[in-house]
């Protein structure tokens, strides 16, 4: 995709609500991620998981976050002239995502503002509300990501 074809700051609107797709998590996916990034016995072994605090095989919280991000890239961020992520705040794992659960959710572009120090960039804040198939909240967070400005204003004293 040509970078100018991607959505820039000027094309976006604060308050936009993005409906995410859905993803049903399998046992194989949970174990494969856990082996690589979260090798705790209750993410790796179904029998151990049943006796654990989680009561069954559940994905690593980091995997739930990864799947969530993937959904945002597919539904929105992949078409945006992104300049990279700044980080996130208030990530809360409210309920484990169990084997066979279907994750979906909505994301609100809650804030869109120009960067003070870099006129060619703006900051997008996304509020996530992730739920399972029973409409129970699984995860919430607030993510900050940079987006390119198509027509940056010249800063004071900058030469043309």
């Amino acid at each position, binding site marked *: *995709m040509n*970078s100018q074809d991607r959505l820039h700051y000027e094309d976006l609107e604060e308050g936009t609500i993005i409906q995410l797709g859905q993803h049903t998590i399998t046992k194989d996916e949970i174990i494969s991620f856990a082996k*690589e*990034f*979260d*090798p*705790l016995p209750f993410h790796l072994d179904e029998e151990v998981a049943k006796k654990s*605090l*989680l*009561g069954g095989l559940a994905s*690593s*919280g*980091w995997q739930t*976050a*990864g*799947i969530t*991000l*993937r959904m945002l*890239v*597919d539904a929105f*961020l*992949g078409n945006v002239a*992104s*300049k*990279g*992520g*700044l*980080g*996130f*705040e*208030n*990530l*809360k*794992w409210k309920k484990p995502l169990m084997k066979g659960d279907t994750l979906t959710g909505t994301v609100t572009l809650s804030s869109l503002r120009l960067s003070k120090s870099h006129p060619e960039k703006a900051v997008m804040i996304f509020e996530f509300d992730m739920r399972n198939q029973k409409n129970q909240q699984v995860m919430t*967070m607030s993510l900050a990501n*940079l987006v*390119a400005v198509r027509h940056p204003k010249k800063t004071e004293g900058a030469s043309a």
Partner: protein
Amino acid sequence: MTLWFEDIEPGTSWDLGSHTFTEEEIIKFGKLYDPQYFHIDPEEAKHGPFGGLVASGWHTVSMGHKIMVDYLYAHDDMMRANGEEPGVSGPSPGVNKMQFKAPVRPGDEIRFKITVQSKRKSASLPGWGVLLNIIEAFNQEDELVYRSEIASFSKLRDFKPGLRLRMGMALAAMPIIGKMIRRK
């Protein structure tokens, strides 16, 4: 690091270990969880915001978690070898704050460090304490790659549950009733 809650002194830091990121694993993670072009396409990434391929921040963070888990297990084994019983760490309720400061490129060696900033007894989960941890990642130039504030549960060694709680725990351990209680 799997010390008992009572033995953890706020302000203490531990070096957890390091990991060198390869182009192959950066692309693999990107394709699964963060398929923006600068995480999956080395050619297109040259014209992107980082001037080349970089790891998804979520990849770096997940790897930091892995390195920490490995460290905790190794430390547990060491304590057992010394005849000590290691403490118990519990699940994390979430991340207060995560700041991505510098990108990770193929070949970068990232080291991870944890500092326990503060600790308190949990109000909601009797028998457990809550630690506020600062986890930081640095590259081979000692540049800060990310800084995070993550809460985690840590079991109290010297906890004596009250009668009501002991009865509740006994009920919860019974197969059928326990299932009903746990289901809420």
